[in-house]
């Protein structure tokens, strides 16, 4: 059962009937708000690494060649995040062709098929095909990430949101999509546990990348499947979960997102206004996709101060400053500038508060 929006609004505010809270006086809680910074997706590969992967696909380079080159580039991205003072460090996922591929290629019962468009982008992914109930012997994250580079860091793992994966797959197995999504969530949790056990990586937060859940308004059962998947990840890993939405307005999930069970909900600030965020009833922590991963223009702190100010005023206890999604929509030098912009935005806001 979902709560009505007005029941979830913090500070006793009430909706005036048209979705705008004009009669509510927001309490200033600036001093209570913590700003943290991390990335919310893959980072770009160099031209050389792309070329090497093409050579590998044609049989002219070994997988070890690819892994070696990717390891070196990955190390540079991890170091850069540390230099910038990010609170959580993410593997740049340079071996991931798309969000689903490592799992679609390695899990039993799943295969990869032809190309399909990744939402409204000039980017395509290989469609996973569920031919049976999925199963795993583990090891996927260990093989597709470089965990040795993350040891000693507070790590954020970025995974596909299960219902998004199922919805964008072809299902040749007679099972309810929601049920399948929860199975996927349990397998993802298993992969995370195994990674932690085998490598000693300290995972502080798992991000579930969830563009599908805001691409349209989900039905009750679909929304419930998303929430159940989030719970399965939380309980199965014992870590905090960031349900990260992008490409489409968070308002498309306004009637259920606050009940999703996620510790942090992320939204794409290039398509979602502060009013839309506040009308969802979310409270506590929020991840603001404030740096546009799909644009080459580097954000200036003064451009985002207004949005940040409104979220702080609304009383969020912690605001995660992050990218809208993967930064591999831009070339590496632009991605670096965008990561620097995240640091600058935090510095500028902190300075203003002082």
């Amino acid at each position, binding site marked *: 059962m979902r709560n009505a929006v007005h029941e979830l609004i913090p500070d006793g505010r009430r909706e005036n009937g048209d979705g705008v809270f004009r009669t509510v006086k927001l309490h200033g809680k600036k001093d209570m708000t913590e700003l943290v910074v991390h990335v919310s997706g893959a980072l*770009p*590969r160099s*031209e050389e690494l*792309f*070329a090497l*992967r*093409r050579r590998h*696909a044609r049989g002219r380079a070994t997988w070890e060649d690819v892994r070696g080159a990717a390891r070196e580039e990955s190390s540079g991205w991890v170091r850069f995040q540390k230099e910038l003072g990010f609170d959580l460090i993410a593997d740049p996922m340079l071996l991931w*062709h*798309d969000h689903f591929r490592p799992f679609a290629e390695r899990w039993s019962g799943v295969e990869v098929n032809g*190309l399909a*468009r990744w939402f*409204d*982008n*000039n*980017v*395509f*992914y*290989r469609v996973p095909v569920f031919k049976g109930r999925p199963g795993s012997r583990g090891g996927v994250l260990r093989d597709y990430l470089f965990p040795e580079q993350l040891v000693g860091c507070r790590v954020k793992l970025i995974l596909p949101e299960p219902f998004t994966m199922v919805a964008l797959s072809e299902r040749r197995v007679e099972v309810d999509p929601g049920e399948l999504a929860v199975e996927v969530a349990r397998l993802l949790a298993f992969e995370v546990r195994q990674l932690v056990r085998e490598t000693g990586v300290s995972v502080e937060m798992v991000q579930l990348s969830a563009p599908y859940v805001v691409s349209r308004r989900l039905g009750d059962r679909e929304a419930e499947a998303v929430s159940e998947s989030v719970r399965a990840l939380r309980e199965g890993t014992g870590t905090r979960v960031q349900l990260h939405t992008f490409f489409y*307005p968070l308002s498309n999930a306004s009637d259920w997102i606050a009940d999703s069970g996620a510790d942090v909900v992320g939204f794409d*600030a*290039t*398509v*979602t*206004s502060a009013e839309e965020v506040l009308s969802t009833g979310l409270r506590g922590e929020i991840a603001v996709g404030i740096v546009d991963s*799909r*644009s*080459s*223009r580097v954000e200036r702190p003064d451009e985002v101060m*207004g949005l940040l100010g409104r979220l702080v005023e609304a009383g969020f206890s912690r605001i995660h400053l992050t990218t809208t999604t993967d930064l*591999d*929509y*831009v*070339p*590496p*030098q*632009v991605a670096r500038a965008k990561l620097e912009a995240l640091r600058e935005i935090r510095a500028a806001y902190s300075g203003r508060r002082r």
Partner: protein
Amino acid sequence: MSELFRTQEVGSLSRAPFAKKLGSPESAEEALYWGKLLRVEGHEELYNALRSGSITQEQLIDWASLYGIRFHEAAGLDVVYDGEQRRVEMYEHLISRVENAVILGRVKVWDAETYRKAAIVGVPRLREHAYLDEFLFVKSKARREVKVPVTGPYTLMDWSYDEFYIQRQAVSLGPLERRRRAREELLYDLVENVIRPELRALVDAGARRIQIDEPALTTKPDEVRLYVDAFNEMVKGLGATFTLHVCYSDYSKLFPHIAEMKVHEFSIECANRDTLSPGLSEEMRKGYSVLKLFREHSVKAKVAPGVTDVHTDFIEPPELVRDRLLYAAKLLDDPAQVIACHDCGLRTRRWEVAFEKERVLVKGAMLARREFSGS
């Protein structure tokens, strides 16, 4: 030219084998082999130049263009071009000639496939023609009717970053309205300042068939209406037959708007979604079901459904090509509305495979014509 089921290419071929292997001993042999097969005039001259290493880059490209033209002609196509032998890639070829478009670097399209993406940093204007010299060369050499492919304004916009137009929109509009207005302004400026000057120059130089390539068109379905209006503005007053090529897309997103488009032909990809079995049943020809939409929405333009799949080396039997054309004619209820072509350019195929695909296209169209001539 054939009355029914006219045959035409869609655009690109892979680089001519002798150019691809330039610097190796096989380069000259490739020039000789293909020169004889395609009956390219003076091919011995190229052979000798490649053997002696006395060929300039410019000469090499001219030869590649000539071989591309003869390739289509030797296969028997009614409408030809040069396989885009002078172009690196459809987007970069044009955007690199646009003022206020700055190429920033490579980005992923899928897996390890990339393209060089540009940022629009000011009002775009055509700095130099991208297609005119190429067209004039083709026109001077071709023995068949010519169709010149031009990258469309929507694809230019959608495949570029916008660092300029979005900044001109008031923040108070909200994020979605800001983006909508920015894209509308950018699209119309690309139409007015980049594409129309290019089209005008081509028409003035004698181009009578122009294909606008818009692979990005259905990326944002809510912008199809905007595009139809922009397209109509783009071709206004230009005396040429326009083809719109859209491939690997959800074509249902084009409707109902494209019924109002002032275009003469739609070129779409269908073979890729079809079965490989001959026959005229709906089950066998499932790749062509989209044609029902063209009829339902009373689209008057001709339709060129792809009848060969450009992403496989499988050579379609002529009977399969024939049946695809006949089925398309049945769905559109008019054989005169159907043009025979490939799903897309044959750039991903080796020349040996591409040539066979062209030949079965011609043979299949001939078989389909027989069904209507009674012979």
